[in-house]
């Protein structure tokens, strides 16, 4: 089922690409799924991004694709432990303000082959060029790429699969047809994810197209999360009743007197 939809999508994109006017290049992209459901059996998901370039004929130099996927923004704290009196204690911290909870930058080849360092900085290509505002005491600033807290933040999120940079993440199936896999780990936040697909030729941006998908909780998961967040007191009372009922049930089932 999923495979056939993908095939149809692919064929449609190929057709579009073939019948495009000869003028400037255009970019068409679509996702395999626009709604990702988190249910009780959720252990992660994988989306597929398909795209086609509309051009008169394939360029000799080829095209480059940079796909940036940004998850819902949130605040996060990064702590650093220090040894105090022989034990490891969180001694220092930085607060990161409205940083993406998920960030993936997928390209078809190395960043320096796609554009110059200057263009990459201006176009925010690669995680190193994406601002992550952090707050220490009162000053708010985007820390330098060498900042240890920023590096730790990136390292930990990369380990969790939430931040991802892959220079082999985009594959060209034909000179004007590409696909990319977007893996979502189990710990992804719910909300809207923005997908920004950009087309580069000779180190310059020639076209871009946005897309988006949504991650949402459904069924019992949604119910429990919403109840716990919005009606804490009631949720607590119901949970307490549930635990007592289970305990009582146990004593009835196993009663021996």
């Amino acid at each position, binding site marked *: 089922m999923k495979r056939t939809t993908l095939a149809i999508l692919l064929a449609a994109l190929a057709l579009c690409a073939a019948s495009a006017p000869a003028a400037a290049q255009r970019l068409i992209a679509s996702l395999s799924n626009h709604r990702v459901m*988190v*249910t*009780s*059996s*959720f*252990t992660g998901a994988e989306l597929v991004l398909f795209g086609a370039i509309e051009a008169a004929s394939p360029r000799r130099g080829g095209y480059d694709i940079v796909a940036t996927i940004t998850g*819902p*923004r*949130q*605040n*996060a*704290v*990064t*702590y*650093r*432990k*220090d*040894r105090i009196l*022989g*034990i*490891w*204690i*969180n001694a220092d*911290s930085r607060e990161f*303000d409205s940083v993406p909870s998920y960030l993936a930058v997928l390209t078809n080849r190395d960043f320096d082959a796609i554009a110059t360092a200057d263009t990459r900085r201006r176009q925010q290509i690669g995680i190193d060029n994406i601002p992550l505002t952090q707050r220490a005491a009162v000053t708010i600033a985007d820390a330098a790429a060498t900042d*240890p*807290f920023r590096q*730790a*933040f990136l*390292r*930990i*999120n990369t380990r969790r699969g939430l931040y991802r940079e892959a220079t082999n993440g985009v594959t060209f199936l034909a000179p004007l047809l590409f696909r990319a896999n977007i893996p979502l780990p*189990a*710990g992804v*936040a719910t*909300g809207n994810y923005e997908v920004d697909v950009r087309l580069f030729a000779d180190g310059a941006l020639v076209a871009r197209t946005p897309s988006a998908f949504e991650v949402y*909780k459904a069924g*019992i*998961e949604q119910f*429990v*999360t919403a109840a*716990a967040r919005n009606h*804490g*007191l009631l*949720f*607590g*009372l*119901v*949970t*307490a009743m*549930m*635990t*007592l009922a*289970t*305990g*009582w*049930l*146990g*004593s009835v089932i*196993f009663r021996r007197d």
Partner: protein
Amino acid sequence: MQIYLPIADLPVNIIVILAIGLAVGFISGMFGVGGGFLTTPLLIFIGVPPAVAAATVTCHIAGTTFSAAFAYWRRRALDPALAILLICGGLVGAACGVWMFNRLRAIGQLEIAIGLSYVILLGVVGTMMVIESARAISRARLGHPTELRRPGSHAWFHGLPLKFRFKRSKIYGSIIPVLVIGFVVEFISTFIGIGGGFLVVPALIYIMRVPTSVVIGTSLILTLVTMVFAIVLHAATNHQVDAVLALILIVGGVIGAQFGARTGQRTRGEHLRLLLGLTVVAVGIRFAISLVLQPDDLYTVRPLEGGR
């Protein structure tokens, strides 16, 4: 079989959680303790955030103590007056414990505070249990009778004002130490996610000289009431109670407790206390190691709520 925990935001193996519930239930049934001091660390070790673990374990303790408390209530093996006073102190203690929990969480020191409390508390209590039971075992081996309660031996705090006669316990003394015991024990328990049974029982026996026949029932009622209170407080203030995780733990716990109780009745008291003491010390040592050893990564990242 994986299940996604809605509050912990993490997929876990349902069999593993059920096994933890069963194992801890078995131990709690065998020794007559809540078992929170084992569940919280085990949940932390499998990756559940410490805040969720400590808050959710209150449900597990309430669920498993309920059936036991019910049985003691039917046999009237508890002192209602003593229980009510302990609960009065305990509720205030629990509220302060949840407040402390939220404060430390806000400044990022909750994890370390839970770890340190575990090391100190389990180390001290466990060592005391081991020494006491080892002595009892050697006494029994030498043929001496076990030491009984010495009537008439009073410490200074029994002479404090507000004296009250606890009929069922056959003691006469000030209510102040009772309130203090309730407060201190429940402050610690709600804060670090334990039931507190293993603190109340020795406190009542050694400090208040309450007879053993009513001690366990009374401590169970105290634990039950304050844990239900703590569930509601945790859920209302920090939203860290995971109902799905709690339900799986309780189901395992209730079943495990039944088998544990049967095994416990066949084992001798001193040996049981020695085993419990050793278990407590082992958990304490495990925490101490994790505090002293350099962590793999000195940095940790925690998302803040409401930032989306």
